[in-house]
């Protein structure tokens, strides 16, 4: 009954390195989302996915890449990490798009040095 999990929970990386954050959900939810949380900005949507092989940009997609080859997984890749990408990243999933709540993972705290 894991629900939605993220890994790693904490990550320190250097500027310019590629890093991938993993998200896995066990509910077979159609929709999955990636957010970043920064002080003063609340949560901002990076990318979302309506189903396997269907992804779309959110509010702040630059510098990020996503894929969704399987319904249960939605990895987020920072192709060349920058200090401005230091943040807490949350993955979420939703059974239906309209009128249903999103379920959030525990978050990944990423520090780019």
């Amino acid at each position, binding site marked *: 009954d894991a629900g939605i999990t993220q890994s790693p929970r904490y990550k320190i990386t250097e500027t310019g390195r590629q890093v991938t954050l993993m998200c896995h959900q066990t509910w077979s939810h159609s929709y999955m*989302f990636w957010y970043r949380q920064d002080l*003063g*900005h*609340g949560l901002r949507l990076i990318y*979302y996915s309506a189903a396997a092989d269907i992804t779309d940009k959110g509010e702040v997609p630059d510098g990020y890449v996503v894929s969704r080859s399987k319904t249960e997984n939605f990895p987020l890749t920072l192709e060349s990490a920058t200090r401005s990408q230091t943040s807490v990243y*949350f993955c979420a999933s939703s059974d239906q*798009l309209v009128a249903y709540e999103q379920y*959030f993972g*525990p978050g990944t705290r990423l520090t780019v040095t």
Partner: protein
Amino acid sequence: AQSVAQPEDQVNVAEGNPLTVKCTYSVSGNPYLFWYVQYPNRGLQFLLKYITGDNLVKGSYGFEAEFNKSQTSFHLKKPSALVSDSALYFCAVLQSSGNTGKLIFGQGTTLQVKP
């Protein structure tokens, strides 16, 4: 564009007193509104939602929210605060566009309940 605003960065209340965390919204069409809570070092948890129907919505942990269309507000309330209610609270609106939708979050309000 759809948006929500939480005008208070922090709300302080004494345990046992009623609490209110404010949220106002700006949407075109009918709003779908949500409240989430985030405890330290945790992900967000859903508290309650307004879709349609009664303006007073009841949710988890004794929280409720009042939808007020004329004031475009969706304030979160609880009759008697607990120290364990201390957390970060987010108001959100569901932005629907065609067959896609996104949650637009407010910046969050820290609730501090003191014994």
